């Protein structure tokens, strides 16, 4: 492999050697990627909520709203990050089965998975998940419903800002709505490999 390394680098050097000058790195200002449709008159959560709906995500406020919604849809079996459970437990009636340990041998048993978000991006309606915030990668992915818990202070206004504040984490994921495809005749289908429902739950 080392010989390939030397071969490639030497070919790169000789390919570039005849260039009289190399292209300079351009400087660009944050305003370049500012979206003109962004509203400046509302708080980050309101903006995030609007943008999340545009990508077919669902914003909910408070544990009670979540339990109502899950109950109406008949989703009563799920997983919850054990660190979050003390804050949610009181809202869940006994008709629900919520596990604190995720068993990968029966991924299809979990209708929902509740994990913590590391942040959110208002402009794009994205939830930010990291290894540090997510108790189980699989629990945030395999259930039909993924619920990411977020607080107001965690919301970045735009992508540019989020990108300059990337956490020191080996696996950062920006989730923008439910998993989807349009491979078959360009028709949009949600819930391909990941969740068919992406919820952002605001908890303070």
């Amino acid at each position, binding site marked *: *492999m080392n010989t*390939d390394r030397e071969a*490639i*680098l030497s*070919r*790169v050097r*000789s*390919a*570039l050697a005849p*260039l009289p000058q190399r*292209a*300079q*790195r*351009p400087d*660009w200002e944050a305003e*370049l*990627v*500012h*979206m*003109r*449709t962004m509203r400046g008159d509302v708080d980050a959560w309101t903006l995030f909520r609007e943008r999340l709906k545009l990508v077919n995500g669902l914003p909910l406020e408070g544990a009670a709203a979540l339990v109502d919604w899950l109950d109406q849809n008949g989703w009563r079996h799920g997983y919850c990050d054990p660190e979050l459970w003390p804050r949610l437990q009181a809202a869940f009636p006994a008709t629900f089965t919520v596990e604190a340990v995720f068993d*990968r041998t029966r991924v*299809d048993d979990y209708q929902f998975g509740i994990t913590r978000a590391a942040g959110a991006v208002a402009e794009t309606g*994205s939830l930010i998940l990291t*290894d*540090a915030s997510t108790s*189980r*990668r*699989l629990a945030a*992915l*395999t259930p039909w419903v993924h619920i990411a818990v977020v607080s107001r202070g965690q919301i970045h206004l735009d*992508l*540019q800002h989020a*990108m*300059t504040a*990337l956490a020191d*984490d*080996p*696996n*950062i*994921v*920006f*989730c*923008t*709505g439910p*998993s*989807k*495809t*349009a*491979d*078959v*005749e*360009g*028709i949009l*289908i949600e*819930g*391909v*490999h*990941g*969740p068919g429902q992406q919820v952002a739950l605001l908890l303070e």
Partner: protein
Amino acid sequence: MKFQQIDQFAAGLRKETQAAVYDGSKKGYDARTKTLFDHFEDPNRLRRVAGEIKQHVVENLDTYLPQVEAKLKANGVTVHWAATAEAANQAVLAIMRARGAKKMVKAKTMVSEETELGHFLEKEGIECVETDLGEFIIQIDGDHPSHIVKPIIHKNRREIATSFEKHGLGAYNDDPQTITRRARAHLRNKYLEADVALTGANFISAESGRLVLVTNEGNSRFCLAATKCHIAMVGIEKILPCDRDFALLLNLLARSGTGQQLTVYTEFITGPKSAAQPDGPEEMHVVFVDNGRTDVLASDCRDILRCIRCGACLNVCPVYRQASGHAYRSVYPGPVGAVLSPLLAGKKFPELADLPKASSLCGACNEVCPVNIPIPDLLLRLRNKGKLEKSEAAAAATPPMGGWAVMATQPAAWKFAMMGGKIIDHLPVKLVPVPVFKAWTGSRTLPGWKGGEFRKWMKSRPPAAPNVSRGGPSGPALPEKTP
């Protein structure tokens, strides 16, 4: 006279396939325009700056490659180098063998299409499952992708339903939702059984060694949640100078590809999973692949290495829309493929030298390109190369130009021809029994002859005033109308 290969292919295309390709590509184009132009004050400036960043990287790869390698190593990633497709596949196989691994799940990567990794691993007794829905369908059909972003743009739901039935994925049902659910159920077991995940990379930052992967389906996320080893096959040109540049390129990539603001799963990967995380790879490898890229770098078409594989130029190209991706006989179809494929072919360039001619040079591909690649200019350079290398494929359907050259270099002969051409107006051109003429006159009416009129106009024009600077910021203004 022989038709060009791409025309022959297009002529033989089934109506159904052609309609699917035409509709599919047009849909992508409309969505792109809306998101890009509604959202930004000056989207063309975004494209230009993004193009400058990528051009800078391409022309400084000698600095960036060792820099990104050092970052990756510091992040705990094992770095491999592969000069050829064969070396890239062998590197992947060696990693699999070292782990005793037999099963791989794979996200969509164009570079692995170049190296035909899937077929290679199957021969070595390793199960390699494509997880992108489109690529999965391509795999079970033994087909090839025909679009960079929409691999099965050439298939309709009935064909997909038939192959699902044939491969034991349920009784015939052509509802796209049912097809998707069946793939979901089938593939989740594959992820959970696999030991190794293979992905590509859309970008990799020289500042942090962060690798960006984008998918909509979440398949690469599943690959990196279920398996214990992650291999990323990365073309050597995928580097960006810093993390902040992701913001610019990501804003352009999804809009240009699918008309989305951002892809559903945009992942930033720096290495193996963190210690406290129960799921995900414990080891990570990056295989940097050359496979002809340094030849492209040495050519006068190195601008094509800016490409971020969004597929926008395919969607907008009138030739792609009519001919479909398979007409290009290579991994990369459409305008980008017409430049990249013949160059990546190396010694086999003459075999694909007709592709640069499959364009009307309308310039739409350059106009939509998120990194502003001057594709029409590059196509012209490659046409020249094809001519110089006397490629037979490129010469097909090119009329002999010798007679024209004699005429155009002798003013008297030219003048005579321009006057004499009028005779065409009085000839029954439609009745000429020559197939080449008939192919044109069958559906077109020849306009009246206008030869010689430009010369007449030039002669009747008053001489230009002396010492008038034409344009320039400080020169005098041009007269409003030239006579």
